């Protein structure tokens, strides 16, 4: 799972030995110096899990918009149940990657089993973590499928945000019990009443069902635990059934291999058993099972309804794919529904800034993907940028986090090209259909774009976006959405001041700078979230960039017809700024087929000679000239036009946040 590595860090428990793979993760500058085990183990003796029958088990998640207090609440629950000591203050918020905080990715807190006595009964409460962003909606749905209920946390000051809405519907559609919790009531501007009304209006939950808490101060947190026991039903399964275990997360440990997080939907599992993956059909012998407290604590067995971990000699995270079902060898069961392989939605080229760094970057990529099987990696090379990779990500934020982890954990600076989305074409040409062996193809590389005469329809991916904003920004936001070819699906006042908008966006319209634009025109107050909404028909064309009539392969783009003129003009202007003047005139053109849609002219040098060159000046001057001569090696020649690598980087590079 995408953020598994981070999860381990947050709880400091998943990296028990500083192996070569683990070590770099453990010494990041943004982590506190001590990255050992902040939480003490509950002791060496193994717990007898058979004392927790299904009726005394509750499996639940906490879901929330970023910074609404999910992690703090989780910490309090762990403290109250004695899972971690109270002196271990929760400082995780400070540890978060900047991008996660900005972009609304709640870092995965690791799943944990809590023991709690309520009215004389010992309960086993499994807090199952979910990644907090819709990029990982598939993973979230798998985690939720191991739960029977959720705690929906909403900030008493900020109220419902876009991600609150998305999370609610995920839980609602999974038919889970929902416990609404209004957090941060200790804040000066807290207005829990208003938030309760929002919840009632939007989610149809009576206001009196909301629990007002301050996770920070511990106020009413105990009440949340009681509600979990009362309101969330125990899992419906039977230990007498054959083993049926859902893999809902996995991480990689350098010494022990893959550690899979599992939820038992039937039967029991113990060391020494032979198990089979329904997806890969591979057979394994169970080395170890246990629960997470949140450190791994081995147990003799795990029983139906329980949640824990399993180590079974799996060498790669791809062997423990999220959503997969495990069963006993020779006792196959019907796999749990809903399994699918990770499907990248956003692609970007990644190249080392300096080609001599290629091997270092390669090994950093290999290590990072050990823990993140959802990133697809294909070797790629560009005449301009050299050898690199084309990476597929689940979404934009996934890409941001991945890139930031490369930089922070592996000290790798890379060129990441502007992201693109996978388009599709429905072929009409019999010849092409025969060639591809199918009539519907996915296009990632513009070079493969089939022309309109052999295509009956082009398709582009779409997402359903949710925006929650104070109402004063609504006009600007609607204009922004229209500019992005979005279609309004809903507009709802969730209270007097706040509006929720739903738009169907073409995915490519939000992959580059939509979020930044939204944040800047709403002074940071609007929140945004989106979910996959399938493909729609689109008037797509391939736009070429020509230098003195010669096409530049790496600048070709697939684009919507309506956007071609503006995009072509912008690209030509940027190229004019970045290509150095040469000894002859250069025509920079954007073209669709044979039709030129934009043109800039770069005039030739008429004078380019340094005025003064005497003895004293020559050393510095030679250094500069040698560097320029050296640069000739890296120049990409398009016809007779020399284009420095820098120019490509500046044009192709993803614009980072302003």
């Amino acid at each position, binding site marked *: 799972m995408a953020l598994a590595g981070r999860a381990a860090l947050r709880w400091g428990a998943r990296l028990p030995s500083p192996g070569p793979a683990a070590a770099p993760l453990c010494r990041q500058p943004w982590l506190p110096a001590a990255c050992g085990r902040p939480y003490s183990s509950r002791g060496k003796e193994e717990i007898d899990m058979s004392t927790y029958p299904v009726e005394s088990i509750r499996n639940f998640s906490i879901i929330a918009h970023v910074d609404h207090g999910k992690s703090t609440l989780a910490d309090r629950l762990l403290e109250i149940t004695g899972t971690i000591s109270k002196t271990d203050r929760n400082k995780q918020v400070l540890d978060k990657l900047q991008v996660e905080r900005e972009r609304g990715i709640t870092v995965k807190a690791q799943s944990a089993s809590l023991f709690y006595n309520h009215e004389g009964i010992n309960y086993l409460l499994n807090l199952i973590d979910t990644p907090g962003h819709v990029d990982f909606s598939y993973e979230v749905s798998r985690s939720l499928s191991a739960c029977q209920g959720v705690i929906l946390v909403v900030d008493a000051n900020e109220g419902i945000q876009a991600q609150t809405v998305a999370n609610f519907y995920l839980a609602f559609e999974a038919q889970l019990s929902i416990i609404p919790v209004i957090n941060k009531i200790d804040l000066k501007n807290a207005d829990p009443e208003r938030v309760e009304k929002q919840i009632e209006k939007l989610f149809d939950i009576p206001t009196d069902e909301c629990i007002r808490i301050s996770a920070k101060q511990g106020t009413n947190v105990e009440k949340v635990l009681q509600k979990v026991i009362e309101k969330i039903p125990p899992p419906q399964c039977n230990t007498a059934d054959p083993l049926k275990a859902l893999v809902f997360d996995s991480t990689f440990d350098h010494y022990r291999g893959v550690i899979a997080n599992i939820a038992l939907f039937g039967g029991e599992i113990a060391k020494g058993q032979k198990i089979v993956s329904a997806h890969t059909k591979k057979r394994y012998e169970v080395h170890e099972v246990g629960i997470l407290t949140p450190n791994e604590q081995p147990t003799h067995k795990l029983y139906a309804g329980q949640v824990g971990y399993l180590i079974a000699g799996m060498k790669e995270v791809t062997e423990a794919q999220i959503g997969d079902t495990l069963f006993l060898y020779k006792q196959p069961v019907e796999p749990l529904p809903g399994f699918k392989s990770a499907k990248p939605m956003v692609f970007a080229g990644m190249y080392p800034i300096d080609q001599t760094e290629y091997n270092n970057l390669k090994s950093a990529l290999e290590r990072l993907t050990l823990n993140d099987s959802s990133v697809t990696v294909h070797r790629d090379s560009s005449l301009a940028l050299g050898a690199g990779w084309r990476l597929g990500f689940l979404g934009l934020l996934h890409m941001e986090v991945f890139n930031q982890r490369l930089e922070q954990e592996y000290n790798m600076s890379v060129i990441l090209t502007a992201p693109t989305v996978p388009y599709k074409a429905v072929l009409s040409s019999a010849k092409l259909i025969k060639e591809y062996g199918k009539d519907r193809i996915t296009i990632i590389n513009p070079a493969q774009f089939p022309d309109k005469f052999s295509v009956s329809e082009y398709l582009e991916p779409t997402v359903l976006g949710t925006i929650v904003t104070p109402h004063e920004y609504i006009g600007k936001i609607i204009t922004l959405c229209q500019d992005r070819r979005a279609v309004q699906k809903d507009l709802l006042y969730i209270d007097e001041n706040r509006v929720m908008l739903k738009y169907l966006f073409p995915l490519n319209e939000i992959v580059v700078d939509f979020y930044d634009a939204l944040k800047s025109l709403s002074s940071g107050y609007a929140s945004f979230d989106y979910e996959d909404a399938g493909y729609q028909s689109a008037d797509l064309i391939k736009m070429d960039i020509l230098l003195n009539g010669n096409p530049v392969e790496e600048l070709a783009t697939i684009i919507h017809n309506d956007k071609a003129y503006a995009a072509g003009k912008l690209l030509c202007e940027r190229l004019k700024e970045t290509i150095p003047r040469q000894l002859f005139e250069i025509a920079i053109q954007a073209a669709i087929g044979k039709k030129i849609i934009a043109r800039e002219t770069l005039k030739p040098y*008429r*004078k380019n000679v340094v005025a003064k060159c005497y003895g004293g000046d*020559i050393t510095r001057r030679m250094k500069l000239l040698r560097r320029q001569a050296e640069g000739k090696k890296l120049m990409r020649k398009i016809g007779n036009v020399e284009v420095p690598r820098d120019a490509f980087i500046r044009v192709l590079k993803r614009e980072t946040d302003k």
Partner: protein
Amino acid sequence: APCPQWPYCRKRCSYCNFNTYVVPAVDEAAVRSCLVREAQTLLRLSQVHSVTSVFFGGGTPSLASPGTIAAVLEAVAGAAHLPAGAEVTLEANPSSTSASALDGFRAAGVNRLSIGIQVRGALPAAAAAAPRGPIVTVLPPQSLDDAELRMLGREHTAAEALKAVEAARGLFPGRTSIDLLFGLPGQSRDAWAQGLEATLRVCDDHISLYQLTLERGTALAAQVRGGALPAPPQDLLADMYQTARNVLVAAGFRHYEVSNFARKGALSTHNLSYWQAEQYIGVGPGAHGRFVLRAEGGCGREARVQTLEPVAWMREVQSQGHGTRSRAVLSPLEQLEELLTLGLRTDEGITHKRWGHFSPQLSLQAVFGEPGEARALQQEGWLVLDNGGLRCTWAGLAVLDSLLPDLLWQLQRV
């Protein structure tokens, strides 16, 4: 050719990023003895027999007393042969070149003056090897327009500049050079053309003509970057340069280097020695040199830089005879790269003979006559390779910096 540097100025000009120092009182006696000592030491190390030229640059060397100039020249003559006709140039600032001061410099041995409207910050340099005559350059008037002079932060007025040029021509007839600057923020093509005409009426037989370079860290560059002054457009600068070339050539000047014009054979021997990659010895704070250390049995040309900061430089000279801060032996390729970069700046270009001196095995023809960048540049009309050697065409000279990376890249591959 020794090039002693006088690093002090009375005032820093707004466009200057040279190694110059404005100090209230210069201990001239101390500086003088250090210049003398360093000149002696370095000339001894080089074992140069004869000096072709001496160039006093700066700073504002005309702020030094004639006695200092005389002392350095005596030291040069004492350490090597300094022929009577050797060119001894002094860069001079119009505001420090009264007739009497100039007379004093002439008596000290200066025989050529370069008058700058802009004054640089270095004391003398001397050219060694095949002896001809040393040169004196008087630092130039740069402009004959008071408003332009004020923008440049110059101390003098146009009238003073004219007077200085007149005085200099009286004392150094045929051996007075004028520096002119163009491409000043806000300067129009017409203003420049008029300035040129005015200059032609008063000038002697040598003109250096520089496009103003906005050097990082200078007051002028900051004003342009901050928008207080307009940045001159590229096309206007090209026009101004072409105008000047045409006007000066029409007036009988030979355009013998990118920025230098001479008539009646009044070429600067000293500066030519740079462009022909001769040996030169830099004396004084921040001075650069290129020579072979024969005294240490060296046979490779060395690049040497003297300590920048005057006080530190003096301390070093006093303790070890010279203030060399860095030394690097130039590889044969590096020497050829310098020859190419410098030689192509002249109208003569790089002769086969000179190339052969640095590259006895591989001829110019072998390097640049084969298919490659140089051949293409010849076909496009920027470059000529013939019996005379390798040189730029009239058009090519104006875009030399676009040709050099290609040529160097071709040279590196041989």
